[in-house]
């Protein structure tokens, strides 16, 4: 009952004109960027981040969540109509979505994708509503060693974000930790890695890093690649009753798989979509239809994708652990507003949390009712030349990097990070572990120092306390599970696209 009353309060705030407008604007802008070939949710959030930095926390996070959902929907559009997945999570959608488009059923594929995403997204948010507060309540008993265990658990996410090479993933993660050390030390406020240079005393700004790594590098990568536009005309996006009847069991199964696996901190949507697709193919009476335009082949992975993304909000909000790169960027957004996701967020900022949760319901509805009728406009937008989009993205990146601290130094940092991001992406070094470690680094350090101070320097403290021991053992088990899942996904991506995995 308590949850429901909180949720009702959240809906009261989420349905205010400003928040409603931000949810709608976020969904529209996210779809707009997501629909551009090759741009996925992470790049979409990074590019549009600047627009939110001038807003108060709740509307800003609502808009970012809308951008996230919208970009995922947009990614499905290019996967279905152009056979171009923005991120690995859209690869299985291409397998049957594109053949459907070639058969003139692209509109139906888009419709099923939207309905499946809506259903799975909403189910995920229902679970978030009831499960996240419970999890946060349990985590209230945590002390520094337990939080350290939690940060170690978060570290396992790196395995699933490592792009198939664990060494590369860990190397990037420790590079992220290294960058997070720049600035004043937390214990004595002694400058670290600043070389007595004033601007470095404040450390590297998170938004400057995100904008550089994901937005600026994206523009230059885009300049290199030949972009394509959707030329087909989409007529009917509303599936027939027979299509719905055929797709509904796949939507249910995809939702279940996506949600349950999505609860594991090391399980990104890139993993669950392939699982959902393969399960659907195995259960089908006509597996030979898969890869040739089976509607279940679109419904299952799309539902799994959205269910995993929604489930990812549970460890994000309740424990402060992001399960994927876009959620790491969202976590960054929360931190910029001085909001530390985790159990205390539910205690200290209940209004904020419940407004955001309620807005996720609203965002899902907005996406469904706005995007299906607007599909013609999204298709048209892909025809905007990159010579116009690229400069606009760079100009937005400038404002984004500048606006957090009103600092030209941060703008310079974002340009440098753009160059580094360009180099790393071209050489297939995964960026997500770097970002995750950069965000979690200061927390990991804080809890490590506090725990070791409590124990007089003995690391045995992490093994002597039940919860922290359980978390560390859990982290080891999750790491092994993640490795197995990544290996499976890596193999499947190679089978389907003959390309290396880039989760």
């Amino acid at each position, binding site marked *: 009952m308590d949850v429901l009353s909180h949720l009702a309060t959240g809906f009261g705030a989420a349905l205010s004109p400003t928040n409603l407008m931000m949810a709608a604007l976020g969904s529209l802008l996210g779809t707009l960027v997501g629909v551009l070939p090759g741009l996925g949710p992470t790049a979409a959030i990074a590019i549009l981040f600047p627009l939110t930095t001038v807003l108060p926390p709740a509307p800003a996070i609502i808009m970012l969540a809308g951008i996230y959902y919208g970009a995922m929907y947009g990614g499905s559009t290019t996967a279905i109509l152009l056979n171009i997945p923005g991120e690995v999570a859209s690869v299985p959608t291409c397998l049957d979505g594109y053949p459907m488009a070639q058969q003139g059923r692209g509109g139906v594929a888009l419709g099923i994708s939207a309905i499946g995403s809506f259903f799975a997204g909403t189910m995920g948010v229902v679970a978030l509503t009831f499960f996240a507060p419970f999890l946060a309540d349990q985590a209230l008993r945590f002390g520094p060693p337990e939080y350290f265990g939690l940060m170690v658990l978060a570290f396992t996410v790196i395995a699933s974000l490592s792009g198939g090479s664990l060494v590369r993933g860990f190397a990037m993660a420790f*590079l992220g930790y290294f960058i997070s050390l720049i600035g004043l030390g937390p214990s004595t406020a002694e400058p670290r890695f600043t070389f007595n240079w004033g601007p470095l005393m404040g450390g590297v700004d998170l938004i400057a890093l995100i904008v550089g790594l994901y937005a600026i590098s994206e523009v230059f990568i885009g300049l*290199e690649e030949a972009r394509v536009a959707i030329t087909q005309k989409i007529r009917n996006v509303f599936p027939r009753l027979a299509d719905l009847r055929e797709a509904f069991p796949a939507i249910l199964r995809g939702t279940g798989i996506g949600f349950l696996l999505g609860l594991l901190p090391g399980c990104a949507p890139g993993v669950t979509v392939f699982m959902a697709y393969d399960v659907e193919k195995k259960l089908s009476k006509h597996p030979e239809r898969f890869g040739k335009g089976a509607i279940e082949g679109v419904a299952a992975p799309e539902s799994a994708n959205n269910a995993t993304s929604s489930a990812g909000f549970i460890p994000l909000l309740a424990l402060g652990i992001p399960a994927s790169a876009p959620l790491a960027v969202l976590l960054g957004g929360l931190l910029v507003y001085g909001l530390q996701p985790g159990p205390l967020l539910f205690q200290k900022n209940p209004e904020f949390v419940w407004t955001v949760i309620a807005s996720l319901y609203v965002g899902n509805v907005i996406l469904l009712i706005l995007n299906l009728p607007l599909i013609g406009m999204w298709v048209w937008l892909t025809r905007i*030349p990159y010579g116009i989009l690229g*400069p606009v993205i*760079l100009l937005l990146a400038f404002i984004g990097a500048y606006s957090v601290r009103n600092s030209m130094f941060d703008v310079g940092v974002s340009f440098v990070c753009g160059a580094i991001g360009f180099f790393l992406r071209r050489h297939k070094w995964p960026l997500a572990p770097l970002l995750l470690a950069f965000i979690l680094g200061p927390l990991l350090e804080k809890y490590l120092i506090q725990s070791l101070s409590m124990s007089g320097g003995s690391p045995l403290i992490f093994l002597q306390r039940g919860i922290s021991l359980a978390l560390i053992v859990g982290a080891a088990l999750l790491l092994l599970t993640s490795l197995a899942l990544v290996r499976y996904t890596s193999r499947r991506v190679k089978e389907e696209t003959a390309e290396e995995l880039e989760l």
Partner: protein
Amino acid sequence: MGGMLVLLGILSLWEGWRLHALRTQMVAGAVVGDDTFPFIVGAALLLLGASILFVAKPPQVKVARPSGEPRMRMILGAGVLAAYWVIVPYLGYTGSTALVSTGLFRAMGGYRWPLALLLGGATTGLLYLLFRVWLLQPLPTGLLGL
């Protein structure tokens, strides 16, 4: 990349050592401090860098160097962007954005000067309305206060 990680690892260990010496002077009896994490990160970077260099070399990725027109657009785009950072403190946000957006449309889009000017002017105007007028975002004003 392995060599770079080794260098950063050494730098981190060196900084940890400096901070350790400071901590032992400043805080008597403290067993951990600002030096602890740099030591851990430094050691990990060193190990990972060495392993990439000598043991577990990640598979080589063939990367085609950009050439021709895309390369020119990338170089010019990066150059205009660097110039942006230099001129903003002098010309202010609005003046430099008008110049730079025109330059970016010309360099990255390959549009003729009149069209690039038009696009640059329109973009600057829209960004001005959005960020300065509507969102009241403080932006650099430059020497002329624009």
